[in-house]
């Protein structure tokens, strides 16, 4: 058993956070043990540092579990949003270090607990908390200023166009003002973070939709390629997050980009992609492989031997047709077929029971992608996929959102600081 940094050590009063309080005051720790832990953040093998130039949960090797939430702002009061982000910053720093955000058993018997308590004996589990803002924070559907932030709207933070290809978006599972992505190797830890951060938000923002995910559905360079629910390796050709130049060019908003306040941030696109698993499961292995463009077990591109072989897109078979069919998913998504454009995928599988109408599994991929500019990256890529991807027969895009992921916060700074500066 690995050592679990106990949340109990700080129950005495460290990290007391006023739920929905005006100021997210972290009362000074009266346990030296707790402050030692704080200082040791990053040294613990299962603690991911919260502070930094970029938020965690983007390049972090994907954890096993996801709790994602999109919130609607309940106010047009800019300071209220600023305060919420400051409160979340303080709370997230504690949560990601494996600590509760306040007393689970308050001294005052008449008080409700500050931390809900369900993660008490659990380790930090590599929890990351990642926050973004939707276009609707800056301007409403009619382009009107909402919080006095219209002049700060980043140009890349666009509404996605309709794509066709069987897209069937549910407004109740799309959009939103604030994104909260909680990832951890333990589902209870990810949920605890979401649960407590939602309590903090309560009169400023309300949950619009959530998505639970499991079994990371992407590889980001240092992990083996996982399989999606169709049984295929997914993410073989994803960006290698250890390659700083790739990240600079494709993921992070740079110093030369506008707006300036987004430097160190990125743009996140989420798509709830339902898979028609029953139909997929019934289709012949040859059809499945032709649809994806890879062999099922090895993950090798059709016509090649190993998973990481470069797909031979130009190769023709004895019948004169491309070995990797024209509509194969890997052909259409290949950077070489898309003017070199690339995105960083960090999605999760989901299973939300059954479709109440048909009884079929309501399962699929919660697609999450990060990029420097969706207008140049996700949008043209998806336009191409929507028109030609053979996979469209087996999937349906049901939810969609775009968020500006805030730059990271240094210690003693708050998420959103540069936005309000």
């Amino acid at each position, binding site marked *: 058993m690995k050592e679990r940094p106990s949340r109990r050590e700080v129950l005495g009063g460290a990290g007391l956070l006023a739920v929905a309080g005006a100021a997210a005051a972290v009362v000074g720790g009266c346990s030296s043990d707790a402050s030692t832990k704080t200082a040791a953040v990053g040294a613990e093998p299962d603690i991911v540092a919260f502070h930094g130039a970029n938020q965690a949960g983007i390049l972090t090797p994907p954890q096993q579990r996801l709790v994602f939430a999109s919130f609607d702002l309940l106010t047009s009061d800019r300071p209220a949003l600023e305060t919420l982000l400051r409160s979340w910053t303080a709370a997230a720093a504690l949560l990601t270090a494996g600590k509760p955000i306040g007393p689970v058993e308050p001294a005052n018997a008449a008080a409700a607990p500050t931390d809900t308590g369900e993660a008490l004996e659990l380790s930090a589990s590599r929890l990351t908390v990642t926050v973004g803002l939707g276009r609707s924070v800056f301007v409403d559907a009619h382009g009107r200023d909402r919080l006095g932030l219209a002049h700060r709207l980043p140009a890349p933070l666009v509404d996605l166009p309709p794509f066709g290809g069987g897209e069937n978006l549910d407004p109740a599972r799309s959009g939103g003002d604030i994104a909260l992505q909680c990832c951890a190797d333990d589902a209870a830890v990810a949920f605890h973070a979401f649960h407590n951060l939602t309590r903090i938000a309560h009169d400023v923002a309300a949950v619009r939709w959530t998505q639970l995910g499991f079994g990371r559905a992407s590889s980001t360079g240092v992990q083996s390629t996982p399989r999606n629910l169709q049984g295929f390796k997914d993410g073989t050709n994803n960006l290698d997050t250890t390659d700083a130049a790739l990240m600079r060019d494709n993921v992070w908003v740079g110093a030369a980009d506008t707006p300036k306040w987004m430097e160190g941030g990125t743009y996140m696109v989420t798509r709830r992609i339902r898979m028609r698993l029953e139909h997929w499961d019934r289709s012949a292995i040859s059809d499945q492989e032709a649809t994806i463009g890879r062999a099922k077990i090895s993950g090798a591109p059709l016509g090649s031997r190993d998973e990481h072989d470069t797909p031979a897109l130009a190769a023709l078979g004895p019948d004169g047709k491309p070995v990797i069919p024209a509509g194969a998913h890997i052909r259409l998504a290949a950077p070489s077929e898309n003017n070199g454009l690339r995105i960083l995928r960090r999605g999760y599988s989901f299973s939300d029971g059954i479709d109440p109408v048909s009884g079929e599994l309501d399962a699929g991929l919660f697609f999450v992608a990060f990029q420097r500019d969706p207008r140049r990256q996700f949008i043209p890529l998806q336009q191409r996929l929507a028109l*030609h991807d053979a996979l469209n027969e087996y999937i349906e895009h049901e939810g969609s959102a775009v968020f500006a992921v805030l730059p990271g916060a240094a210690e003693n700074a708050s998420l959103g600081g540069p936005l309000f500066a």
Partner: protein
Amino acid sequence: MRRLRVVAAGAAVAIALSGCGSSTKTGASGGSGTSARKIAFTLTKAGCDPAHLELPAGATTFDVKNDGADAVSEMELQQGGRIVGEVENLTPGLSGSFTVTLEPGTYQTACPNGTSAAKGDLVVTGVAGSGTTVASASAALAATAVTNYRAYVESEVAQLVITTTSFVDAVKAGDVASAKALFPKARIHYESVEPIAETFSSLDENIDARANDVPASTFRGFHRIEQQLWVAGNTAGMAHDADELLSDVKRLQAFLPTVKLEPAQIANGAVELLNEVASSKITGEEDRYSHTDLWDFEGNLEGAKAAFTAVRPLLGKSPTLATTIDRQFTSTRDALDQYQTPGGGFVLYTALTRTQTRGLAAQVEALADSLAQVPPLVVAG
């Protein structure tokens, strides 16, 4: 409408010229003995290259390559307005081919969306009757299965042309009540052979796309007219759509002789039809304005049954599976028939409870799972 076209990826289609129905072959099979002359043809941003061709009569293979033309992905060879051969879905860098038997006369080439050479021509000189022949060496049972299923498809599409003509006439006459009554009756003959129609992906989109399948500017066909009839309650602006629908349906009929069929593909078609029921009829997504989804359900189910019936004699070694599928077809049909109305036809989708849709779905899924076991058992050779 199925979400995406797997089949037509770079697929080649060759159409028999009028009066010589037996002399067609698809470009892909290649090894039929008589070698066809090859013509290199390129899709460019301008369109067709070359735009003007002169060739002697005889079997000719068009090797078409897309040379970096993003907007141009299709090449058609036409004669007197009829398409006699085409390749489509050629994205930049891809090649495809088709073979036709050219007869003396003038043909037109079309490379839609080309900037300056979207149309071209081809003059054929020489004598008629120098075509290729196709040698088919399948087992007798397989041949019979194909023959029987082809006859079914042809008769359904003939019905489709007749019923669509009536529907289109009503739309153009502005007779909303008649058009609404004729809508499901026309569609049922499309739904019964949908996997075949989907072989021609652009036709399937033209005829059967739902609003969310295609960009709004290209939304046309049955469901566009359905939207106008039920949402707007009139036929305003639909005359052109109606004409296009009828012409697309007739093009489908003209294409049928070129469809290459084999038993495993026919059996797969049965599975696809049941998948269609599960994904778009059980959910009410297909006929979202008229709610006549159960008519389409019947078309899909009967089409699947016809496909299965055609290949059933090939299941000699698996009599239990065949018997199971027979029983499941009967029980699925019985489940659907509960919702028949006295005057013929079915209740609207909106009349069904969730328990009822779930009951139908359970039957369909079980039948589809059984049907999915058929293709590997009937593979030719």
